[in-house]
């Protein structure tokens, strides 16, 4: 999954001379939290709703006036991503910098924006249930051929694998959560168990050891 799959194209932008009050109004109207700042079609900064609120807060040491321009408060240089970047890399960058959005640049031109909400949507797409399926949770040795062996077993039983989610565990093991198009998970799990895989769910699978 790459950024162009999850980003918003045609983001709403402002210019360095936009007044703070107008930027605030724009965010309210469009129901957004991030405004890239463009000057001559080049991305030169970014303003978030938090930036605006902090800058104009009465609690600030020297609050900005709503009539001042965003140039004075915007963050720059801006960290960005590319449409063909994998979503996990963009996620890593956002977590590392502790920021909530990345403008997407292609050939130095702003083509989109990706926010943490988009990445949560991506997570939902990866982990969610999109077809009627049952859950099979298996622990595999982290080496080549294991997944193929498992997949072959399912194919032989004419069971479709709708999705596979994997994550690493300690001791060179991998956890695999599969969503399978069948109600008869137990039968399948038994066959899988008999082929030497460790079944975590469904529980209490009686397999021949």
């Amino acid at each position, binding site marked *: 999954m790459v950024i162009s799959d999850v980003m918003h194209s045609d983001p709403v932008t402002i210019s360095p001379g936009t007044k703070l009050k107008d930027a605030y109004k724009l965010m309210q109207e469009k129901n957004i939290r991030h405004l890239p700042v463009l000057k001559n079609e080049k991305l030169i900064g970014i303003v978030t709703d938090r930036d605006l609120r902090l800058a104009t807060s009465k609690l600030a040491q020297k609050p900005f006036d709503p009539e001042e321009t965003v140039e004075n408060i915007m963050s720059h240089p801006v960290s960005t991503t590319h449409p063909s970047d994998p979503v996990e890399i963009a996620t890593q960058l956002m977590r590392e910098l502790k920021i909530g959005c990345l403008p997407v640049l292609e050939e130095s031109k702003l083509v989109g924006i990706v926010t943490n909400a988009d990445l949560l949507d991506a997570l939902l797409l990866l982990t969610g249930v999109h077809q009627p399926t*049952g859950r099979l949770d298996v622990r595999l040795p982290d080496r080549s051929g294991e997944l193929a062996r498992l997949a072959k077993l399912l194919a032989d039983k004419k069971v479709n694998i709708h999705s596979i989610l994997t994550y690493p565990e300690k001791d060179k093991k991998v956890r695999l959560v599969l969503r399978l198009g069948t109600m*008869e*998970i*137990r039968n399948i799990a038994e066959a899988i168990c008999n082929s030497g895989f460790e079944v975590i769910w469904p529980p209490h699978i009686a397999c021949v050891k």
Partner: protein
Amino acid sequence: MCKVIYNNKYNLYNLGPGHPFDPVRVEMVLDLFKELGISIDITTPGPATVEEISEIHDSEYVKAIEAISAGKYSDDPEKYGLGTADNPIVKGMAEGARYQCGGTLSGAKLILRDKTKKVLQLGGGFHHAHKNFASGFCIYNDLALAINEFTKAGLHVAYIDIDVHHGDGVQEIFYSDDKVMTISLHESGEYLFPGTGWMHELGKGTGRSLKVNVPLEPFTEGESYLEVIDGIVEPALKWFKPDIMILQAGADAHFSDPLADLNLTTYDFEKIFRKMINLANNNCNGKMLITLGGGYSINATPRIWTLLYSTLINKEIHGKLPQNWILKWEKKLNKKLPGFLHDVLPAFDKIPRKNEIENHNRDTVRRLNDLVSPHWL
């Protein structure tokens, strides 16, 4: 009084040897009543027509299913969910499914015409069938057809689903319908097919808060299950004031079911049936259409559905099952059957997490009430 609907043509919906959805389960129930000397007044309706089925399902889908069933289909059946392990292609299955639908539909019509207040359809319950694809042993959604029959007459329907799997097909078909409340009690989608039926699935538009889902913890026992009915189903019906209750009475929440992980006993099922009947009497003018559903333990399912009917007609059946019946079916099935109508207690080992499971289910009821209470004013 309670009318019973059955047609031996239901057996045409037979998904093959070894498939858990086995018509023998209902034959065993009918035979048991015969042996017990309980006479049943059975109505035998014909099949639903393709046109009737198409009131719920996409006509393109119905055409494809009929063609596949007749062996006259050349495209890929898997795009309609057929030809899979759960929904194999069996000649005549569409006709069988239409007979099953015809049964449920005629049950609805009997109630609509005031011929009776309660109907037990000894078949049907195909809650996983979607508008345009087959799933989870189901191809045509008889429940949706019956619901549709009632709403066409302007009635409000409460659909209650105690099958251990989420009633996803019915829910989806009526997701934004404000005449239909669906309540599904099931093992959590985190663990069990079809993976849906979460609390936040509340319906859309004017149907919002009318779709109610109670995902239960695996190994939930009867006490906790009954508490959930009191905590959610009862207030839901009191608020919605339906004209009729449709109950999908799947038996697969039984502890011995091979496909799922809830831990109800036959005693629990009897209490659940009694509660549902009382709820229908108190909130739905006594009107109630009951279908069967899942239930894949050959040893438990016929006993549970026998209890369903005996509870409906308020006839207590004592103790032992007739020896004739046991011998006959043990021979046919080549399987040992229990000697008693009810499970022998304790039915299973003590569940170590029992307290935790009960607390989790209580939290679920509380959270669900918080979600729906702004709507259920």
